[in-house]
């Protein structure tokens, strides 16, 4: 059984985001980039499925510029087997990305596609669901537990109300929540080994898919800055302020 895991290179989650003065986007030059955090959970889960004897190959797919290869290498260093890099210098929308993933899936025929539930840059939370719909495979979104049972899987999903369990047949698409597992660090020998693992690179324009953007970004701005409020001297004053000034209790 093959597993396909998608990874995205994003601004590291510890970096303070700076909006460009001209409103064209956020500052990405000389900023630390990392693998999108829930994608790390997806890679980790694939490794665990393989280690449990339920899969024999893990393929890492990333769509992006040349630097996306570094993110693929990170996943290979964690233990994945090979990489596919679909090269493009443009920021693609989830609609285009899901078409690319579906195309790769049709060629590679994985049993499960694992991806992060959302990328922490554009926060769209769409690609997994779109890929599932395009392939007509069941979806298991916001997964916090995946149990493989023969030709199906029981997936626990994190929903606003609590947890939900569904049973999906293989092949399926899982979008992974941060609670799914604790991603491992790559060991030095594995980082060395990963350098020799193959990455197949293709140009996005060679796939015959329309990847033109549909959404126009008019501007990007800082969120309204919160004015620092006042310090109160004791709890009684706080309660009075909340009651009579802010009127929230």
């Amino acid at each position, binding site marked *: 059984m093959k597993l396909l895991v998608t990874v995205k290179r994003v601004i590291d989650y510890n970096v303070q985001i700076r909006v460009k003065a001209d409103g064209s986007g956020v500052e990405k030059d000389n900023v630390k980039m990392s693998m999108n955090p829930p994608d790390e959970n997806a890679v980790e889960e694939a490794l665990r499925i393989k280690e449990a004897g339920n899969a024999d190959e893990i393929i890492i797919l990333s769509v992006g510029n040349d630097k996306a290869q570094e993110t693929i290498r990170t996943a290979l260093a964690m233990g994945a087997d090979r990489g596919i890099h679909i090269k493009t210098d443009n920021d693609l929308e989830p609609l285009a990305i899901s078409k690319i993933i579906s195309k790769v899936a049709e060629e590679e025929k994985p049993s499960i596609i694992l991806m992060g539930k959302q990328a922490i*840059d554009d926060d769209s939370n*769409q690609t997994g669901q779109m890929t599932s719909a395009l392939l007509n495979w069941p979806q298991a979104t916001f997964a916090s537990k995946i149990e493989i049972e023969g030709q199906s899987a029981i997936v626990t999903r994190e929903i606003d109300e609590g947890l*939900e369990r569904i049973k999906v047949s293989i092949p399926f698409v899982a979008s992974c929540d941060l609670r799914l597992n604790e991603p491992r660090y790559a060991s030095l020998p594995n980082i060395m080994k990963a350098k020799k693992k193959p990455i197949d690179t293709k140009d996005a324009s060679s796939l015959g898919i329309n990847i033109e953007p549909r959404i126009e970004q008019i501007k990007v701005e800082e*969120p309204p800055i919160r004015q620092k409020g006042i*310090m109160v001297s004791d709890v009684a004053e706080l309660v009075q302020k909340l009651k009579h000034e802010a009127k929230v*209790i």
Partner: protein
Amino acid sequence: MTILVLAEHNNIDIKPSTLNTISAASQIDQDIHVLVTGYECEELAKNISKCEKVSKVYLANNEKLKNPIAENIEPIVVSLANNYSHIMAPATTFGKNIFPRIAVKLDIAQVSDVIKIISSDTFMRPIYAGNAIATVKSNDKIKVLTVRPTSFEPVETSGGKEQIENISFDNDSGSVEFIDREESQSERPELSTARVVISGGRGLQSAENFKLLNEIADKLNAAVGASRAAVDAGYVSNDYQVGQTGKVVVPDLYIAVGISGAIQHLAGMKESKVIVAINKDEEAPIFNVADYGLNADLFEALPQLSSELDKLNTIQQ
């Protein structure tokens, strides 16, 4: 232009997120239809048809729709889509799960998590966990949108046209089987939609001490949250976490207790209307975003807060 809103509910009650979404839709156009997919939910459909701004309710009533399986709801919405200028759902786990499927089947780029409507094709949405706000224009024929419920005031539950039309459903995907749902057993409101949230950080020092927060939460009808530090320290489970990697909350009142205010945490709560910070470290960055700061030891402040709230309640009665 007519707008279709997909209703979130539990077959008995309308979820408040539906009322917020109808309200967002009404900023674009006054002709709003609501689709209810569920089972034995005629009463619910009737109640939705009474809501302000709702001119018509479509009801797909089938046992297979008892639970919101995305694969089953998607084709119903897609079959209606061409009659509408906009299709909208709340950006809750319900709407997030279903809507991208609808968008891709229509070959449309979805706009997620809309917080402000500028015009019928231009919307504002947070990116980078709210650290930047993007204004985007959709050039697709039909706009497929999810909206952040807390950004829109709910519509009233009266004033609708009380028109209901039944539609059939015969499309069970069969590849997904619902097993069960374990809703967080809490008398308190849900964290992501609560009007008041009180959160604890590492300053609470133990799981046991979260009881101090629970006591206050009960008095304010608040949800209890936590910082990542408190979750990592094992004081409370993951589903309490507020922040970039947890839940984003936008309550009327957010009380941060023993939370220093890391960027990660601020991303999840800084849009709250009123923020209170209680911390014994006067340099804590949380004070920079707080409307009311109290530099005090939480173990003294929380019992005092509890008794002050009691006084308040006694006076009101």
